[in-house]
């Protein structure tokens, strides 16, 4: 009988397995549309091969850089593709990439870029002006034959004003093999900064034509690593591109592994199975620092977390009230409590490592003076004001609701009563863009390392339209607008720096925000890692990284 029982159990389990397998059986187990199915995947690393493994929290959405907006996708595409210009080291300054340089005409409506010679895509297609034109045409024109179903190119629309007639780039023309000319509808000062952005990397025209709508699973660029295979939700495997035009990679294989849980990712790093881990919780930083087998890199801040006043709503239409709040909030204490070594108090909307950042004197923390200002402004202390916070953590606010509580406590010290209101991120964005708040926490992560991408997007009157406002303070200042527009039309960086200095002074005086914090993004690595330089944009090409024995 006993045997019978176990037999039955066996039958049950086998049956269950069969049924389950049958359910999954509707799928072709290996179709040519699967990523990496065409790629060589016999054998992993051979003896003596060096593999670098990067652990991260989520998988990539797609590997066509132009058609993704998430960091997890761009992190990988940055290894496979190159951009015309590249951000340099730990700054947001732009230097040569696939192009050795770009020159503007007199009024900066035409840019002519000189391309590197002898560069080939990983599939052997030559890189030239034709290839550049092919890529830009595909992004710009909604009628382009190589723009496939489901390709949105969201970043292109966002950085270049839209598609077709709305695109700032009017046309891209081939002058000869190594020269390409961009004609703009109007000057665009951050044009070069935009060219260096990861989404605008140049892909192989041959591969785009060959793979069609499946190009995002079969990426081909000119970068230091070639795509090998993608096991969804598990790993993406790349190998060294031996024909790379720049400095060839120092490791044979680069693997991006998905490890969703923050603590597990750190444990993997400690056990030596991975060499990099990002998405580190601030609370784990001391552990990493005290472990001799690990090292901690900090990406210079490229973001700002702030408290926005809705200046259309009383009492926050009064500058004195806003200045008082700026003096009432103890930024330093908040940064110390919630960020440890990973943040610094903010004095302007621009992150400190970005060119154009002003060192202006911030409002002092002075509750007494704050109270006095409020009294002068006949502030109504009997009312309770709503302070909005997003419910889920963001890179610039690791614990938004707790930070809101700290602010509420500071305000209560000067007699201001505050009630905290939270919404999930999507709802929060919609409601704040619509101007339904009076006080709201918000933040911004920079795209292209250009001050315009912060000041114009977040504080210009052009972006204070209800329903789609980037400027959720709904602050409309004509003098500021003039400065920002002038800066947009000036290609010279020194002149622009001066204009942005004045712009930050105006913003400081009018106080549409309480700028709170610049948060740094920690990356943990094995002590064996050498040659890694953390970039404020968070997307480093890993060809310079090597592993000590």
């Amino acid at each position, binding site marked *: *009988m*006993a045997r019978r029982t176990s037999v*039955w159990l066996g039958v049950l*389990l086998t*049956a*269950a*397995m069969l*049924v*389950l397998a049958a*359910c*999954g059986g*509707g*799928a072709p*187990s290996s179709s040519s549309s699967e990523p990496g*199915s065409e790629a060589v*995947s016999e*054998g*992993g*690393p051979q003896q003596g091969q060096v593999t670098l493994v990067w652990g991260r929290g*989520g998988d990539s*959405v*797609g590997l066509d850089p132009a058609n993704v*907006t*998430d960091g997890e996708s761009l992190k990988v595409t940055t290894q496979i593709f190159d951009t015309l210009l590249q951000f340099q080291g730990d700054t947001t300054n732009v230097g040569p990439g696939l192009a050795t340089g770009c020159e503007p005409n007199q009024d900066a409506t035409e840019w002519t870029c000189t391309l590197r010679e002898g560069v080939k895509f990983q599939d052997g297609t030559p890189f030239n002006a034709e290839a550049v034109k092919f890529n830009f045409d595909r992004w710009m024109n909604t009628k382009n034959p190589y723009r496939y*179903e*489901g390709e*949105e190119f*969201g*970043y292109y*629309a*966002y950085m270049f004003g*839209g598609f077709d007639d709305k695109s700032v780039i009017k046309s891209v023309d081939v002058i000869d093999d190594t020269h390409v000319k961009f004609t703009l509808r109007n000057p665009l000062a951050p044009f070069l900064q935009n060219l260096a952005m990861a989404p605008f990397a140049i892909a192989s025209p041959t591969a785009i034509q060959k793979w069609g*709508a499946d190009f*995002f699973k079969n990426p081909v660029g000119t970068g230091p690593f070639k795509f090998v295979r993608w*096991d*969804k*939700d*598990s*790993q993406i*495997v790349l190998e060294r591109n031996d024909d790379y035009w720049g400095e060839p990679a120092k490791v044979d294989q680069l*693997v991006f*592994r*998905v*490890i*969703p*849980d923050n*603590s*597990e990712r750190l*444990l*993997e790093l400690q*056990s030596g*199975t991975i060499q990099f881990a990002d998405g580190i919780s601030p609370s784990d930083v001391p552990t990493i620092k005290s472990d001799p087998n690990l090292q901690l890199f900090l990406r210079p801040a490229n973001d700002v977390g702030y408290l926005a006043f809705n200046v259309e709503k009383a009492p926050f239409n009064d500058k004195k009230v806003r200045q008082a709040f700026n003096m009432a909030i103890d930024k330093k204490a908040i940064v110390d409590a919630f960020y440890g070594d990973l943040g610094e108090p903010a004095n302007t909307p621009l992150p400190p490592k970005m060119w154009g950042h002003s060192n202006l004197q911030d409002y002092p923390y002075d509750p007494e003076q704050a109270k006095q200002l409020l009294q002068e402004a006949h502030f109504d202390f009997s009312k309770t004001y709503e302070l909005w916070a997003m419910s889920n953590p963001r890179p610039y606010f690791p614990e938004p609701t707790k930070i809101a509580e700290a602010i509420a406590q500071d305000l209560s010290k000067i007699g201001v009563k505050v009630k905290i209101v939270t919404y*999930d*991120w*999507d*709802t929060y*964005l*919609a409601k704040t863009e619509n101007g339904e708040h009076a006080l709201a926490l918000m933040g*911004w992560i920079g795209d292209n390392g250009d001050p315009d991408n912060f000041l114009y997007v977040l504080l210009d009157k052009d972006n204070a339209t209800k*329903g789609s406002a980037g400027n959720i303070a709904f602050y409309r200042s004509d003098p500021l607008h003039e400065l920002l527009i002038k800066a947009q039309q000036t290609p010279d960086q020194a002149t622009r720096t001066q204009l942005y200095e004045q712009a930050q002074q105006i913003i400081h005086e009018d106080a549409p925000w309480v700028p709170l914090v610049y948060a740094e993004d920690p990356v943990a690595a094995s002590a064996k890692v050498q040659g890694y330089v953390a970039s404020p944009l968070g997307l480093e090409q890993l060809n310079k990284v090597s592993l000590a024995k």
Partner: protein
Amino acid sequence: MTQYVLRRLLLLVPTLFGILFVVFLSLHLIPGDPATALLGQHATPESIAAIRQRLGLDKPLPVQFLYYLESVARLDLGDSIVTRTPVLVELGQRLPVTITLTVLSMIIAVVGGMALGIAAAVRRASIVDYLGMSVALLGVSMPIFWLALLMIYYLAVQLHWFEPTGIASVQYLTAVPKVTNFFLIDSLLAGNTAAFWNGLWHMVMPSVALATIPMALIARITRSSMLEVMGNDYVRTAYAKGLPGRIVVWRHALKNALLPVITVIGLQFGSLLSGAVITESVFALPGLGRYIVAAIYNRDYPAVQGAVLVFAFLFVILNLLVDLLYTVVDPRIRYD
């Protein structure tokens, strides 16, 4: 009997329809939509509108639901919004991981749980009993993620017996071509035994972590059910006839004690499937549970609906199997 099975299978249709309806509605009720999830904070209103139009999200809800039903009827679960891959293909890649995990966990839970329960019942009120039941109590009350963290920290990081997470080491995972998407089967097909053992070894910690709760429950049910049976007259008679204890326990008592145990096993399959969601996240296994979580987060409607549909289907089929197993264990139960 055949009629009964057919009737149960027919019941699948309204059940799945109801599930689809509820999932569809609740998904569309959570704020946010795929367009904003896809394009992020920096989207232009035009591009959001374009996406919504392309995905048919601008149509009224009932129309969207009918469209979806129609495609499901054609056994087409649609394409994932995020990855633009057919949901069926994606599920086919994820399910094998979840199946491997749940089946291994079930084996551990059934074998371990029944052994514990029988031992405790046979040596009632002895040290074995107390110890076994304390372990069971601990197993029920220990959250999966906490146990998983402890295991990873001590067994993987400190002792280096295991690698912390993943379905296999990177080099093996890369070396095995995908045929069935079951890594263990694929590695055998490729004749790579090293990869097979590596994959199996990687599944030890997750399956044990996932098995603790059902194992503890099975142990407790087995014990109480065995005790009840052992008090019966026919067991006393068997002992009185001088049969050795082994024969009495295994041949006579166990079969009658099995019924409630099977019920629990059947029910536990459901909780295993849900526990798999947590386990897969903690151990970074690319299974169905994690797929659903990511899909909900991205508001990937077709992916969530497809995955829930498959989950529900499995659940119903498993329940049917359990009911059928009753008739095998206890001939008195018949479904005519």
